């Protein structure tokens, strides 16, 4: 029983909370005065973008920590890889939902608004980061180089976040409890918490795979008979 809760507790809770949040958003919250029901995509779009930013920020933090760390190991690098991947998928979904909302609201799927442009740059930057990871075989070099690229790319993150405040253009300023009706804040918050739990589950899962891959890469010489390969940095703890 304990094992089942440990394994399925967080994903089920995340799905349930996200379901409640979306139900509240789609059925309980009132339609927007100007946009009508179209506005309800906010309960999907905004949490996706929040979680994407969170994952990218985690990528930046783990990249810096990887460069600063003194003990050898692959945990930070694996976390950096998984957070970039998860963030890229969430950000892309956020951008697609934004475009779906943009069509009825602005009349176009895409405009060269600073927020949209900087978000697009961010997604391409992290695609480049992930491509780099695939093109470097040496795990040590891959970890260091991709950390450097992650730090250079992360300079764009505050630009994405503040773009709606710096350049007042088409995209509205971030919604907050002060600007949104309480009946809209509740579903938004519940959806965000649900998606946060699912993001964490996904991150942990991807992290375990990445760490196992790193260990498999560096452990290969040891598996060969008679090879006195140097010891692996830390023992695999993954199932």
């Amino acid at each position, binding site marked *: 029983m304990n094992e089942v809760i440990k394994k399925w507790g967080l994903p089920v809770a995340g799905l349930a909370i996200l379901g409640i949040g979306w139900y509240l958003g789609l059925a309980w919250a009132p339609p927007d005065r100007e946009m009508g029901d179209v506005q309800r995509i906010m309960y999907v779009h905004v949490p996706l973008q929040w979680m994407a930013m969170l994952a990218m920020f985690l990528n930046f933090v783990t990249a810096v920590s990887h*460069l600063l760390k003194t003990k050898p190991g692959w945990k930070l690098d694996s976390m950096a890889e998984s957070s970039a991947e998860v963030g890229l998928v969430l950000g892309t979904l956020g951008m697609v939902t934004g475009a779906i909302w943009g069509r009825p609201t602005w009349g176009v799927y895409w405009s060269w608004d600073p927020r949209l442009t900087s978000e697009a*740059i961010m997604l*391409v*930057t992290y*695609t*480049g*980061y992930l*491509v*780099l990871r695939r*093109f*470097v*075989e040496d795990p040590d*070099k891959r970890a*260091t*180089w991709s*950390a*450097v*690229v992650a*730090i*250079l*790319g992360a*300079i*764009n993150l505050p*630009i994405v976040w503040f773009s709606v405040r710096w350049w007042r253009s088409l995209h509205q300023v971030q919604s907050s409890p002060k600007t949104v009706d309480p009946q809209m804040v509740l579903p938004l918050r519940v959806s965000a918490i649900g998606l946060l739990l699912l993001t964490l589950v996904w991150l942990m899962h991807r992290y375990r795979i990445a760490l196992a891959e790193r260990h498999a890469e560096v452990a290969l010489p040891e598996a060969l008979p008679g090879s006195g390969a140097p010891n692996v940095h830390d023992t695999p703890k993954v199932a």
Partner: protein
Amino acid sequence: MNSSRPRPIGLIRATLTLLRKDLLIEWRTRARLNAIVFFAMATLLMFSFALGPDTRLLEKNAGGYFWLAVLFASVLSLGESFRVESENACMDGVRLAPADARAIYLSKALGNTLLLVALGTLLLPVMVALYGVRVATGFVDLGTVLLLGSLALSAPGTVYAAISSNARARDVLLPLLLFPLVIPALLSAAKATTLVLQGDPMNQLGSWLGLLLGFNLIYWGVGFMLFPRIIED
């Protein structure tokens, strides 16, 4: 002074020594500068073919085309800048020298900047002739834009060139990493060049140059700090 160990030399002297070495190698063949100049000229020519011979359109967008040509040429030039070191394991020799590893970054990035400034200087008369532009606000402004723009492409470009020169598929990797990153620099350099060429009645040139300066400060600083980690073994 300990005579048994080599005396470490200062950052500035090491940078200048390495820069002189790179420029000397470049000067002896002039292969890289020749190649990128003709590549960039061909690019400028291609824009006019792709868009048709509409002189008004070409003149209006000249700043953007100019910087796109410089950006494309810079990718070739940056990719080459580490080739001299990767042949015969010269990078190991440079790293074994009793000098700060950051001097390698400064010398390479400055060398790339100088090459791009030289490229831009040679490209300008071609652009004036092909697109029929005139320089409205003066050559000092144009030189400032060219210098700041070249510095801005070289700072992150040198970091990425060092990484991609050692990775597989280096020819794809460098533009893939560099292009999205330099969009703010490309945007401000192109806008500033357009203002210099067409006049600046609203006095906007300063803010675009400020953006370029900020971009330079951030990326030269970050590149300077992180570069030693890239070339360490």
